[in-house]
């Protein structure tokens, strides 16, 4: 019988059925960070349990690390307490910790892949909702809660219900100036923030075939914003090429055996899916969110919806609430909204290719007056390569601040925060009320290039006009 990658990986990791009908699923790779793990280690201590497979858990610190201060103790004692707690928990339990002095620290979803820990055909869990990022490699990767972090530490398993699989085919060539970020914002706009509930998303089609691993990660990263707990792309030569030679990738004969096995996990060509959605890549526009959920997005040429455009009362209420919070007028163009802050970074768009692309275009431009623009590498590895390439100089020259690795302004757990009702053009993944640290702060999600265009013009702009994409190669 032909099977999808999801089913194959699930079957290879299913331990047994539990009394309530759920499956006890083996989690091969466990990633942890400082926010959602300390309570889990505490629960383990309370019950006198030990970490069962310490060599399969890897830790990093990302949410609370300041990006403009490298010497400990940090000025925020709570942050200092959290990093120390993680350090101690890892040391006490023989867990590998990519600490700030290793040159490998960074956002957990950037570190796993770049170290070669993220591999095809594996199950991965992390106490973090953007864990689906790792699905870009053909892994089944789940975001879990802290009690489940405890379960993985104590048993290397969690109790789960099997998911259905929706295949999302994107075929064709993206227009110039349209990026992976636009693809996922478009998908969420189309299928809604709850559309993926109960599903794993399998992303496929010629657009994905041509995507680099970093582009695939950007899409998989935001699966949860569409309600899907899991998102993945079938592994192929692009995947193997990326993994070859990484610190934790198999070596020598084990590499060849691994590649053979990885290939066997890809969905069978004739397998059936619970649902299939087809999208034409040429119809996707640079997409920008105008509201307070990632599904509230429009193409840059479009206008923000008016309350009366929404078909049902509850949708009208949602639009009204979003417009009020964002201080936008229904029916007004998305273009031209004046921004205060520009943020490029996060586990969605904080990788080398994001910075290379931005550097290519911002050269010779200047950040508009009154705009604070910050660029934050997703990991120390990314920072180092970017600096070796001289990208930091280009950014600084253009008026951006170049920071140290971390989650930064993606969420409000470190000093990088919006103030008051500042409006931020952001390459991150969430535009919820208060997400970027101020209870009235406003976030507009978009691709890094679109953030750069907003930064240099001081307002939401079409990057294709600002940077002259029309002449760019298709």
């Amino acid at each position, binding site marked *: 019988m032909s099977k999808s990658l999801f089913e194959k990986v699930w079957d290879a990791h299913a331990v*047994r059925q539990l009394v309530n*009908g*759920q499956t006890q699923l083996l989690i091969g790779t466990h990633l942890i960070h400082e926010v959602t793990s300390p309570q889990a280690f505490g629960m383990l201590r309370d019950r006198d349990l030990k970490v069962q497979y310490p060599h399969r858990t890897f830790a990093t610190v990302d949410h609370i690390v300041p990006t403009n201060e490298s010497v400990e103790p940090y000025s925020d004692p709570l942050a200092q307490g959290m990093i120390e707690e993680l350090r101690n928990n890892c040391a006490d339990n023989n867990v590998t910790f990519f600490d700030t002095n290793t040159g490998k620290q960074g956002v957990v979803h950037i570190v796993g892949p770049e170290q070669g820990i993220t591999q095809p055909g594996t199950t991965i869990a992390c106490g973090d909702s953007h864990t689906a990022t790792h699905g870009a490699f053909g892994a089944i990767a789940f975001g879990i809660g802290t009690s489940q972090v405890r379960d993985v530490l104590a048993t290397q398993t969690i109790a789960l219900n099997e998911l259905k699989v929706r295949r999302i085919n994107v075929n064709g060539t993206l227009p110039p100036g349209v990026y992976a970020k636009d693809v996922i914002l478009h998908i969420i706009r189309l299928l809604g923030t709850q559309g993926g509930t109960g599903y794993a998303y399998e992303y496929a089609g010629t657009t994905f075939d041509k995507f680099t691993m970093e582009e695939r990660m950007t899409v998989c990263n935001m699966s949860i914003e569409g309600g899907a707990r899991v998102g993945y792309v079938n592994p192929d030569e692009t995947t193997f090429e990326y993994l070859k030679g990484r610190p934790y990738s198999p070596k020598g004969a084990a590499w060849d055996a691994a590649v053979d096995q990885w290939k066997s996990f890809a969905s069978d060509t004739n397998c059936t899916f619970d649902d299939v959605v087809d999208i034409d890549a040429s119809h996707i526009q640079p997409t920008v969110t105008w509201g307070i959920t990632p599904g509230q997005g429009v193409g840059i040429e479009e206008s923000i919806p008016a309350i009366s455009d929404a078909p049902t009362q509850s949708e009208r209420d949602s639009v009204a609430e979003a417009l009020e919070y964002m201080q936008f007028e229904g029916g007004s163009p998305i273009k031209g909204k004046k921004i205060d802050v520009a943020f490029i970074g996060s586990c969605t768009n904080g990788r080398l290719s994001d910075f290379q692309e931005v550097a290519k275009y911002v050269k010779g431009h200047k950040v508009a007056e009154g705009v604070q623009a910050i660029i934050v590498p997703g990991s120390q590895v990314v920072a180092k390569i970017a600096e070796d390439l001289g990208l930091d100089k280009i950014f600084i020259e253009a008026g951006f601040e170049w920071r140290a690795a971390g989650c930064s302004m993606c969420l409000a757990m470190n000093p990088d925060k919006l103030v008051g009702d500042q409006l931020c053009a952001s390459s991150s993944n969430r535009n919820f009320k208060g997400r970027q640290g101020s209870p009235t702060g406003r976030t507009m999600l978009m691709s890094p290039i679109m953030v750069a265009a907003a930064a240099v013009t001081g307002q939401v702009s079409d990057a294709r006009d600002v940077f002259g994409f029309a002449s760019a190669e298709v």
Partner: protein
Amino acid sequence: MSSTPIKKVTGKGVFVPGDDIDTDRIIPARFMKCITFDGLGEYLFHDVRKTESGEDKKHNLNDSRFAGASILVSGNNFGCGSSREHAPQSILRAGYDAVIAGSFAEIFFGNSTNLGVVCVIASDADREIIASAIETHPELEITIDVENHKISYGDQSVPCEIKPGARDSLLSGNYDPLDELLVGADEVSKTAGALPYMQA
């Protein structure tokens, strides 16, 4: 160590209007700089309840008529956003035992169930009826009957839905799966043994 079965939840209700109440609204991230969950209850819905200068906003959650409520009634897609267990933990620690919503985000639902926070689904129309009943009679006791898929208050009742797996777990007191997972240790090592990447 299985927990006490949860067949029914009874208590006063409070209505928190709105769809897509996300985890950042349930517990803003800046209050998550902590290494235990103790004390999180205090920050539940902080920015919904307080102005930037820290004063109480006009909101049901600040209304003394609904003080002591233990059942939250809200909209669709409740708990969307983050996988952070801080959200259901803050709900639990603020004294709530159950949430009635139009739908739940998946991870939030799983996290809540593991903690024994009962999450049931009721239709828009039925939630409206319950919300207005709470508004007119704040002291009204609401009972969620997990076994019989029913929400009753006064002499009325409306149907509710609960996922079969979660319902079984609550009714049997097995909603925290750790003990059962621990029992499977031998089978876990067999499954792990067959996977090359699991080897030390």
